[in-house]
């Protein structure tokens, strides 16, 4: 048993010290009727080499950017991860540590989270950010709850162009909380329809939630939405599913957003079939005491030296329990660390350049696909690195044909938008070379590679 150090002699010695005759005796408080009378029915133990062989076999049955030309986005993005990111988060002082309850021996985690909070504030333009949440969708749900708490109102407007997982997660969190959720449709640009927005916004609204960019990759008009929302005293929540866009786009705070949440996977986290990812959550100072989750703050030690601690915990489940702002306990510490390292490596210029590459590659792909016979770009709004394509027949059929040529060409939208059987979402990042894009276009057009 390679993870258990006890020898038979150790066990004998310890039982003697306890005054017990056998290990079995230690379980005497468990009534016989409550005992399992047979061994667990699980596969027998594997050696390390057997285990790796089994896992390698499973891993080989999955498609990746190494096996296919990949154009999948929709809330998870194939960006390059510099080697230093995984190298540094693999230091066991980081990954084998617990939540930093003892700050004197957790300054590494605490300072890194303080830096993460700062980076998120800089990216979004907001005043405060928390130490991270499970992912973008759950952060979005927590933002809706916070807006309802802060405004004491019960009506929430969700853009229909918001990521479907975000909408679904908000609905689950609000299931028993007497909040009314209203979906707002989009117009021909792929942006939330301002007329419908105006018609639905009123003094009962706690929040309006928009994607930035939205699920179709389209850049929403946050400025107009902010004017409309604030005119009625509602919080504008910007939900960022592709945060690399913030390297180029105006920060949501500048456009009037009150709360910015999003998914941090693009910043140095692997695709990993959807998780673990990284939710970020930023707000204005007015909402500081309502913020869910952990916060790290700067302070001094007994000798006057700078140090960092978990702070404002009275909002959390530790003290007020059923009055807590949220039931979230852990945060995504290691994922937040990865994002912090990634952003530090890219820095001010690298982030901008990477965003510009994404924009250019997607623009090229969009133009090439639009030129293909039978394919159109249905939404006129500006996009960052992904866009919707309408094909000549069912999207699933088109994409299956493309897949046979080793290309994962996009995501069919019909599952979430039944009125869009022929549309699919194409994402192009800095990882896609021009010849990948040309191959996709050839395959879509029906040609060979």
């Amino acid at each position, binding site marked *: 048993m390679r993870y258990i150090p006890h020898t038979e002699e150790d066990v004998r010695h310890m039982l003697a010290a306890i005054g017990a005759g056998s290990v079995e005796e230690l379980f005497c408080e468990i009534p016989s009727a409550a005992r399992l009378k047979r061994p667990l029915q699980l596969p027998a133990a594997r050696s390390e080499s057997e285990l790796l062989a089994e896992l390698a076999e499973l891993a080989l049955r999955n498609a990746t950017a190494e096996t296919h030309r990949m154009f999948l986005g929709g809330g998870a993005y194939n960006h390059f991860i510099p080697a230093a990111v995984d190298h540094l988060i693999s230091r066991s002082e980081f990954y084998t540590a617990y939540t930093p309850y003892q700050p004197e021996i957790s300054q590494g985690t605490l300072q890194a989270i303080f830096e993460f909070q700062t980076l998120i504030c800089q990216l979004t333009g907001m005043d405060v950010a928390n130490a991270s949440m499970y992912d973008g969708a759950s952060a979005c749900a927590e933002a809706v709850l916070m807006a309802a708490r802060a405004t004491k109102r019960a009506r929430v407007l969700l853009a229909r162009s918001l990521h479907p997982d975000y909408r679904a*997660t908000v609905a689950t969190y609000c299931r028993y909380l007497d909040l009314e959720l209203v979906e707002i449709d989009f117009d021909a640009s792929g942006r939330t329809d301002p007329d419908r927005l105006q018609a639905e916004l009123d003094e009962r609204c706690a929040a309006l939630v928009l994607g930035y960019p939205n699920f179709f990759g389209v850049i929403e008009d946050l400025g107009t939405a902010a004017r409309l929302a604030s005119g009625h005293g509602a919080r504008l929540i910007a939900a960022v599913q592709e945060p690399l866009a913030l390297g180029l786009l105006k920060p949501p705070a500048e456009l009037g957003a009150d709360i910015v949440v999003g998914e941090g996977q693009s910043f140095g986290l692997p695709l990993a079939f959807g998780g673990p990812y990284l939710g970020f959550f930023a707000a204005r100072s007015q909402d500081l005491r309502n913020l869910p989750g952990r916060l790290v703050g700067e302070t001094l030690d007994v000798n006057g030296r700078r140090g960092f601690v978990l702070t404002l915990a009275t909002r959390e489940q530790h003290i007020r329990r059923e009055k807590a702002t949220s039931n979230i306990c852990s945060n995504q510490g290691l994922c937040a660390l990865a994002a912090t390292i990634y952003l*530090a490596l890219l820095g001010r210029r690298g982030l901008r350049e990477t965003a510009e590459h994404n924009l250019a590659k997607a623009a090229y792909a969009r133009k090439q696909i639009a030129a293909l016979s039978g394919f159109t770009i249905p939404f006129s709004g500006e996009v960052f690195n992904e866009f919707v394509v309408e094909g000549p027949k069912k999207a699933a059929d088109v994409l299956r044909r493309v897949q046979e040529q080793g290309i994962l060409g996009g995501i069919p939208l019909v599952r979430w938008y039944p009125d869009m059987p022929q549309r699919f979402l194409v994402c192009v990042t800095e990882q896609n070379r021009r010849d990948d894009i040309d191959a996709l276009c050839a395959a879509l057009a029906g040609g060979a590679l």
Partner: protein
Amino acid sequence: MTQVGTSGLQLNEKLLFEHSDKGRKGYSLPALDVPAAQLPAELVRTDIRGFPELSELDVVRHFTRLSTWNYGVDSGFYPLGSCTMKYNPKVNEVACRLPGFAGLHPHAPEDLSQGALELMYQLQQDLAETSGLPAVTLQPGAGAHGELAGMLMIRAWHEARGSRRGKVLIPDTAHGTNPATAALCGYQVIPVSSEGVLRAAAVAELMDEDVAALMITNPNTLGLFESEITEICRIVHERGGLVYCDGANLNALMGISRPGDLGIDVMHFNLHKTFATPHGGGGPGAGPVGVTAELAPFLPVPVVVRDEEGIRLDFERPQSIGTLKGFYGHFGVLVRAFAYIRSLGPDGLRKATEMAVLNANYLRARLEETYHLPYKARSLHEVVFSDRKLAGGCRTLDLAKRLIDYGFHPPTIYFPLVVAGAIMIEPTESESLESIDEFCEAMLAIAREAETQPELLKEAPRRTRVGRLDETRAARRPRLRWDGGGQVGEGQE
């Protein structure tokens, strides 16, 4: 005794943002092979004020230095009660980084994700077998998230039967997230007092037609088995309620007892506590939930199912509570837990439990003459002392800080709330006799110090990079981000 704590050279490091602003970057891009593109000027930001500009070595050195200010399981003994900090096997880290796992996109077609789906399906089966609860969701992102899933399912189950109950019973030994979760599901929390273990009579007295569920932790947060659990479940069921089990302490039961067999209806698993996935300084965790067959229709979507064509994600479940987060769960964490279960097998899981319980009882035997033990019942995998016998006016916090000087991470302190000055110690099965002896010797030495030199405790820790930190100041004058300079204390508010 061997002195574990010692001091060495610790290097200072500024904040990322305090490094000079020189136009550096630690990143490279290939040449752009398509024409450049531009967005309309009104959409584009000017600059990112204050963003770092560093070379790769600057970044590597920065985070390497920060790492040396942290204490992890690989650094030493980490006896956090109820948090269960067991060793994180290295092969698991290799496993989750296999390109076929790390590089798999969640929107990849199901026929090209069969390896991942197979792993998830098998893990669901393994967790079901370990807990005795036949239906499992892997979606929740952490234990508390699993609690939310579980309590939502309980409420959905009641509502599907036309019942609108409004209360949830929660014993005083519960984790802080339990009441918060119940409140998030729209329930009123009714506290139940326990006497170390929860008595069936106490539950019977409070259990009525308006109680939707009882939330219980077993073994509880005192490390004691809830010996009346079967009777408690019967009482709750008889009056139309369900029983939720906080699975935080499943490490004490693997292969010994299954919550599902005892009458538990819903339970979450904290994969890092029971199945050795790393906690990463706060996360990611993963909080799968197991339920009875009766509750299976309410599981969050998607559910991983197997049919003739293979394994697929089932989204078409009309009674489902919905989805709890993006995609399907913390897959990378699930891979690690799967690898751990396969590494140990059924005998190894049971052995891990036995050795965890042996370690806790040995540690208790060595300390119970010196430290006050408020509950005498036989401990399972963790033991709770209090600071009542600590001399010199020293409190639990002082003991905890002094342990740091001796080279140990302190135990969980001031929890559970039912014990004043609680010190909750959980050695886990991965610690050797020698490391537990070293820890016990430090605990005994500190008790002696409290009698003769209490200032050593009150001024601790002295060997760390920073001394005791002013948490009150941090809360009164919050500074939650770097803002270009100034000293602590000049913050907003």
